[in-house]
C-alpha cells in the first residue's frame, strides 16, 4: 500500500493482487515450458502499447519490497522510456532503483542485454512487441500455434534463406530467431543478435512480456538457447572495427553517435552503465584521450 498521502492509493506495484496472481501463474507455466508463449489476460497500463506494457506487468508481478530495479532502453539508463518506467515503480511500489547492473535484482530491458554477465539472483525482464517469430511469414495465429505444437519450423529457415538470397549473408540483425532447449523457436524480442549468445546458459532467469499481444514466455537459468542458421552460413554476431570512443571497450555492442554536420561521428558503448564503470576504472577511449582536440 502506498504511503503517499496525496496520491490515490494504489496497490503495491500498481496491479491488484488477483491480477498479479494470474500473471505469476502464466510466468510459472512459461518457466516450465521454456520458449513457449503463454497467453495471459494483459491489463491496460497507464502507458501506451509499445512502451513496455508487457514488461511492466511482469515486473509488477514479481517485484517485492526488497528488490532493486534497473530499467534500460537500448542499453541506456537515461532515455525517456527507462526513466519513466523507473519513476513509475518508485511511485507505485516505493522500491529502490539503481543504474548499476551489479546491484540490481530485477532488470527490465528494451532491446539490450547488459554487457556485465548476469548472476543467478537476477531476473531480466524483456519488453516484447511481437512475440511470434513466425508472424511475418504466416499471419494466421491458428496456424502458427499449430506449427509450434507440431514443431514445424521449416518456415523460419525460409526467412533466413531469403536473407542470404537477397544479401549474400544472413542480414537479420535483431530479433534473430532462437531455438530454446531443442524445442520451441522463440523471438528474443528486438535485441541485436549480438546479445543472442548471452541468453545461452545464462545464470539469470529471463522473462518476456508482450502486453499488446498478451503473451508471456521465459528462458529459465541454464537453458540452451541456439540461434538458427545454415550449415554453410553459420550464425555470427556483429563485429565492430573500433573500440568504444569513450572507454575503449572491445567486444561490446556500440552505438553510432553523430557529432556534427561535417561527417564527425563516434562509436560508443550502448550499455551506458558498463561504459561509466570502465571509465571510473581508468579506461580511456580515443575521444577522451585527446580532450583538447575534442574541445575545439
Amino acid at each position, binding site marked *: 500500500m502506498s504511503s503517499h498521502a496525496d496520491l490515490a492509493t494504489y496497490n503495491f506495484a500498481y496491479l491488484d493482487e488477483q491480477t498479479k496472481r494470474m500473471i505469476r501463474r502464466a510466468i510459472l507455466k512459461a518457466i516450465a515450458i521454456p520458449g513457449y508463449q503463454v497467453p495471459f489476460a494483459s491489463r491496460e497500463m497507464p502507458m501506451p502499447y509499445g512502451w513496455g506494457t508487457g514488461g511492466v506487468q511482469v515486473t509488477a508481478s514479481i517485484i517485492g519490497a526488497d528488490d532493486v530495479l534497473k530499467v534500460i532502453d537500448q542499453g541506456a539508463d537515461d532515455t525517456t522510456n527507462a526513466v519513466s518506467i523507473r519513476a513509475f515503480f518508485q511511485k507505485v511500489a516505493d522500491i529502490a532503483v539503481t543504474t548499476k547492473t551489479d546491484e540490481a535484482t530485477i532488470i527490465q530491458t528494451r532491446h539490450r542485454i547488459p554487457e556485465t554477465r548476469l548472476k543467478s539472483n537476477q531476473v531480466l525482464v524483456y519488453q516484447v512487441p511481437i512475440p511470434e517469430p513466425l508472424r511475418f*511469414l504466416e499471419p494466421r495465429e491458428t496456424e502458427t500455434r*499449430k506449427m509450434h505444437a*507440431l514443431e*514445424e519450423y*521449416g*518456415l523460419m*529457415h*525460409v526467412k533466413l*534463406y*531469403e536473407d*542470404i*538470397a*537477397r544479401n549474400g549473408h544472413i542480414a537479420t540483425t535483431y530479433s534473430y530467431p532462437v531455438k530454446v532447449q531443442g524445442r520451441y523457436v522463440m523471438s528474443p524480442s528486438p535485441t541485436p543478435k549480438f546479445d543472442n549468445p548471452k541468453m545461452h546458459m545464462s545464470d539469470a532467469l529471463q522473462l518476456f512480456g508482450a502486453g499488446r499481444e498478451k503473451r508471456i514466455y521465459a528462458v529459465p537459468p541454464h537453458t540452451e538457447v541456439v540461434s538458427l*542458421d*545454415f*550449415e*554453410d*552460413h553459420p550464425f555470427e554476431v556483429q563485429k565492430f572495427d573500433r573500440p568504444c570512443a569513450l572507454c575503449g571497450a572491445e567486444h561490446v555492442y556500440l552505438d553510432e553517435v553523430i557529432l556534427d554536420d561535417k561527417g564527425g561521428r563516434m562509436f560508443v558503448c550502448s550499455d551506458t552503465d558498463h561504459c561509466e564503470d570502465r571509465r571510473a576504472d581508468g579506461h580511456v577511449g580515443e575521444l577522451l584521450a585527446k580532450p583538447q582536440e575534442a574541445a575545439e
Partner: protein
Amino acid sequence: MTDSPLLKVNDLSKFYGTRHGCRNVAFELWPGEVLAIVGESGSGKTTLLNCLSTRLTPTTGSVEYQMRDGSFRDLYHMSEAERRFLMRTDWGFVHQNPADGLRMTVSAGANVGERLMAVGNRHYGNIRATATDWLTRVEIGVDRIDDQPRAFSGGMRQRLQIARNLVTGPRLVFMDEPTGGLDVSVQARLLDLVRGLVSDLGLSAIIVTHDLAVARLLSHRMLVMKDGHVIEQGLTDRVLDDPHEPYTQLLVSSILQV
C-alpha cells in the same frame, strides 16, 4: 505396377448439414496411375478431393493410404502431426489459384526450398542447387530464382507451384483444376509438362477438372460425378468414347468442336 493399390477409398460421404457434398464414393488408386474426377460445378468434385487430401474431414467412410513402408494407414486415424508430415513429404497439392499454394511474398527459390527446409535440410547451397534444378525442369528461367511469384505470369506461377510440390519426391499429387484460368496455349504447355513429369517420376495423381480435354490428355482412368454421386467410372478412353450414362453422354457431347 505393384500388386496393391496406393489409396483405398471406402464408402466416403461428406454432409453439409442435411445436404451432401459427396456420397458413398469408393475407388482404388494404383501406383503410377492418374485418375481424373470430372463433372459440372457443384457436383462434389472438390469436396471429394478435399476429403481425400485431409483438407476436409469426411462424415463417414475411410481413406487408407499405403505408407512408404508398405503398411496401410487410415488417414483419419493418424495423428494430425503425421497427416501434416505426409502432406508435405509424400504428397503434393496443386491449387487452382497458385496464390493459395505459393508464398507470394518470398522468392521462387525459397518457395521451392520450403519443403526441403521443413524436412530438416539445413545446407543453403544444396537447397539452392535443388531449387535451381527444379526451376529448370518446370521451364522457369534460372535468373528468376530470386524473384517473387507475384512478378510471375499465371502460367509461371502454376509451374512454380508444381515444382514446389514435387521437390520432396512425393508419390501422390492432388490437383484441383490445375489449368483453370490459363489461356489455351499456356494450358497446352502446362499439360505437356505435367504429363512428362508424371511419367518420368512415376507419380500417382488425382486431378479434378471440368475440362474433358485435360482428363483425356493426362488421365488413365476417370470418375464422372453428378450431384455428389459417382455415376460412371472406367478407363478414360472408354468413358469418353463410349459413355454409358445419359449424363456422361451429355457431358461428352457438350464439347465444342472447332
